[in-house]
């Protein structure tokens, strides 16, 4: 990842290839359209969203008790429970479990939390090989890239590029880009991995306080292939994944995939309650900044997120800037309100990577006020002095202009004259508004002049 670069600079890299931007935009809009069809097929969709949001609100307000209850029930079920304050502790726990069993090769199913913790790099540095088993994750892993989307990890890659990666690493014929053939190749390659790995790590979609079980949702069945064939199953979960009772899954499983991909449900919704005889099952409950977010009234609703990715698919900025431009594990609108909580300075750019159009909030299945939170973060970031120097200077200039009618009128006139007579002064790379846009033709008069002419006698 390009360290030190902000969203705008990274988006510019993505924008260099205009055809790819159009293709990325259309592909994600196609997924968003499928989401619309699926949600419109449910007469009670809005009631479902409201119910989910209220359940999650109850969870946030009773998190302490639910976690204690979950832990107690999971222990009774024979699952080992670990608590990790941050990414480093999470990674150390995974390593210690593997070391204790003398295991140096692990298979993993998709988990954005382990991306957040940079688990793969840590384990590899400590002599443990990790293979991602979700097809999209495996592709980006072979390409030595992070996922660019939480549900569609390699949505930024064209099939020809994937064909080249498979040719290099998995021995497919040069130039082969047929998805069916590439998927079959990955199936054979990963089957051998599933059969030979003694440890499997999965994420957690939902954890149930009442029963101490957890649910993992996949379409490929990779979490199950890993977990059911391994001696050790490690499940990593952010504590916000809790829901109170098993029956509440009826609400969340209806919302999750309809919002994510437009499917009525994932192929597999696996409920892990007890380890199978002879197997060890571990759950690592991770904080990593979540308890701080819980205390921030304006931002705590972001912890309701069920990671469907609907906000990304609908976001006009995400679709045209690509997931990698967000330089954080969870990209898009939801990532842009989660990341500043972890490191406000490092992610100060992200709440500005938005049009504030509200589309993200409209599609969110748990009704997170995403665009309002983006707006609030902007204010917090500026107040804390983390906004960029140019933005601060521009805002100060705007404040001056907007507070004085004389300066406002003068700068308006200057702008119109410049656009008409010296367009090169604004139509150049130094003007951020000129990027990917044509500057407008200026009107003859300012609004005030027009009003004076056309509404004589009335006070503007």
């Amino acid at each position, binding site marked *: 990842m390009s360290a030190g670069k902000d969203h705008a600079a990274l988006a510019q890299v993505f924008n260099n290839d205009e055809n790819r931007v159009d293709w990325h935009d259309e592909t994600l809009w196609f997924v968003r359209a499928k989401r619309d069809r699926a949600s419109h097929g449910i*007469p009670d969709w809005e009631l479902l969203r409201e119910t989910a949001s*209220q359940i999650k609100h109850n969870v946030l307000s*009773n998190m*302490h008790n639910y976690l204690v209850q979950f832990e107690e029930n999971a222990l009774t079920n024979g699952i080992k429970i670990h608590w990790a304050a941050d990414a480093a502790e999470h990674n150390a726990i995974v390593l210690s479990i593997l070391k204790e069993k003398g295991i140096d090769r692990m298979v993993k199913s998709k988990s954005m939390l382990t991306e957040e913790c940079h688990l793969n790099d840590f384990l590899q540095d400590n002599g443990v090989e990790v293979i991602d088993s979700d097809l999209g994750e495996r592709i980006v892993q072979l390409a030595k890239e992070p996922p660019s989307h939480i549900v569609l990890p390699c949505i930024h890659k064209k099939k020809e590029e994937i064909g080249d990666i498979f040719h290099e690493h998995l021995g497919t014929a040069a130039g082969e880009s047929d998805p069916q053939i590439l*998927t079959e190749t990955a199936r054979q390659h990963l089957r051998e991995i599933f*059969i030979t790995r003694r440890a499997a790590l999965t994420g957690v979609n939902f954890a149930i306080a009442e029963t101490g079980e957890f649910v993992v949702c996949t379409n490929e*069945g990779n979490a199950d292939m890993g977990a059911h064939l391994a001696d050790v199953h490690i499940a990593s979960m952010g*504590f916000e994944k809790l829901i109170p009772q098993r029956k509440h899954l009826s609400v969340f499983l209806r919302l999750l995939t309809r919002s994510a991909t437009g499917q009525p*449900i994932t192929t597999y919704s696996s409920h892990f309650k007890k380890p199978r005889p002879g197997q060890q099952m571990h759950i690592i409950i991770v904080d990593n900044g979540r308890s701080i977010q819980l205390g921030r009234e304006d931002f705590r609703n972001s912890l309701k997120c069920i990671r469907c990715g609907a906000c990304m698919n609908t976001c006009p900025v995400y679709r045209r800037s690509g997931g990698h431009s967000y330089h954080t594990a969870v990209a898009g609108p939801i990532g842009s309100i989660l990341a500043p909580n972890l490191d406000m300075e490092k992610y100060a750019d992200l709440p500005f990577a938005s049009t504030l159009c509200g589309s993200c909030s409209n599609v969110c299945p748990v009704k997170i006020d995403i665009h309002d939170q983006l707006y609030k973060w902007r204010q917090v970031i500026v107040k804390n002095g983390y906004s960029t120097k140019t933005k601060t200077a521009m805002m100060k200039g705007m404040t001056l202009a907007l507070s004085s009618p004389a300066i406002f009128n003068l700068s308006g006139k200057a702008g119109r004259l410049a656009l008409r007579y010296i367009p090169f002064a604004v139509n150049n790379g130094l003007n951020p508004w000129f990027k990917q846009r044509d500057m407008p033709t200026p009107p003859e008069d300012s609004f005030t002049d027009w009003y004076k002419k056309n509404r004589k006698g009335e006070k503007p």
Partner: protein
Amino acid sequence: MSRESILNAIKQNQPELSPLPTEVDFCFEDINPVEKFKQVLEFIGGKLHAVSNYAEAKEYLDSVMPPAGQWITAVPEFQDHAAFVEPGDPHLLENVDVAIIKGHFGVAENGAVWVTEELMGARALPFITQHLVILLNKNNVVPLMQQAYQLIADKEYGYAAFIAGPSKTADIEQSLVIGAHGPRSLTVILTD
């Protein structure tokens, strides 16, 4: 080590207790659940075949499944047709071609079938097999997930899953490919 500090931070930072929402009755369009189940199952890549008894089911499977392959079942009535799954190392199931299990019930709105561990014989079986067959009684199809979880709310199991169609992926340019890691096909046999 971190347990107490995490729990304390949460306790201090969580908002004032807000109640759980009251039970809601979600509505289901007035259509035949079995019809809807079939329609959705086929939409998500599964197949449905209705029979009146197990003899008919066996005849049907013989005509559509790979004949020479390794057939395994967790259904006692199918022991004359497939090897009965033995408890033990799941790796021994590596080369299973056809697995025949029972499902508890189906869900019309999403084509999913609820299967618990004891119906699978081995947890790995429904995933490792090349082709999966689930036997389902036609009277056991509920309209929505709400009714599904009413049926399983207090049931005991070590592992269970909703299975909705064959294993699939669309990770390469959103092209749907059936048979990612798990079964290349799912056939639900609806019995009387």
